[in-house]
């Protein structure tokens, strides 16, 4: 049985190596820092575009940083199938999160009891939406960090609300945290998997 545990671990390590490059953490960290900066200068709508920029940059950075160092691998069918099944469930989860997110933003303007209650929570609903997104990504890719980030986001936003810290500072703290974690992961990744010379036609 130990052999099977060993192989299962080997498979998980091979899979996880692709997600321990810190690129996603860095991109999300920079996006949060940018959002914080835009809120500080009073242009929050520009900041809202930054997550989109991060999503667009992600595949390119993977191609130029991760792929040349770690090479190409296609994971076993069972993992691919599990990922496909999860993608369906998580698309629904993302859609619900997005709807809730929009509802939360809309709830900040208005004077009904519901609007007032939402406003009394300060930035906590925004934090919950961010945390749900982090958790969804973590579950989708089977990366436990996503769940930890979700927890940290909720804690930062609840503390921020209790201590009356402005949302830009809360985003700044989270951005710095994610950027630092991402940079550390990237450094470890680059050290562990140095860029190898390109394959020549004589290899293998």
């Amino acid at each position, binding site marked *: 049985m130990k052999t099977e545990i060993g192989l299962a671990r080997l498979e998980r390590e091979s899979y996880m190596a692709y997600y321990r490059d810190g690129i996603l953490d860095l991109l999300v960290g920079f996006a949060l820092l940018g959002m914080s900066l835009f809120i500080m200068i009073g242009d929050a709508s520009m900041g809202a575009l930054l997550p989109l920029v991060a999503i667009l940059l992600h595949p390119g950075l993977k191609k130029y940083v991760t792929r040349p160092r770690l090479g*190409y691998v296609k994971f076993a069918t069972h993992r691919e199938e599990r990922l496909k099944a999860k993608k369906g469930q998580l698309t629904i989860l993302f859609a619900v999160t997005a709807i809730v997110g929009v509802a939360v933003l809309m709830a900040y303007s208005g004077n009904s009891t519901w609007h007032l209650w939402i406003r009394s929570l300060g930035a906590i609903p925004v934090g919950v939406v961010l945390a749900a997104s982090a958790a969804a990504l973590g579950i989708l890719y089977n990366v436990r960090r996503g769940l930890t980030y979700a927890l940290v986001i909720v804690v930062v936003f609840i503390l921020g609300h209790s201590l009356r810290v402005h949302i830009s500072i809360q985003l700044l703290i989270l951005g710095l945290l994610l950027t630092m974690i991402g940079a550390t992961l990237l450094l470890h990744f680059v050290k562990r998997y140095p860029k190898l010379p390109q394959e020549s036609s004589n290899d293998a």
Partner: protein
Amino acid sequence: MMRENSGDEYAQVVVDVDRVIHEPARLALVAHLYVVSEADFIYLEQRTKLTRGNLSSHLRKLEEVGYIAVEKDFVDRIPRTVVALTDKGRKAFDLYRQTMLRFLRD
């Protein structure tokens, strides 16, 4: 009598072990290929930490016995070697695992 028989059986298990897979570098290679569908040369080089020459020669050996299938293509004009375990290789590794478990079990 019983002891002699079990001793013979024990020796036979050792004799029957698949020597192609039993070599440590090839064992690492086959184990890595067993848990994925396919992987390229760089991936195997990074994960097994074998030198390029060693990796090439072990892959050639595994290909000769039909345990792996090797495909060469180009990605962005760079040559790429993609390796996958064949059904024969997968069965051989399963058998190797069973044999070693029988041999090493307490």
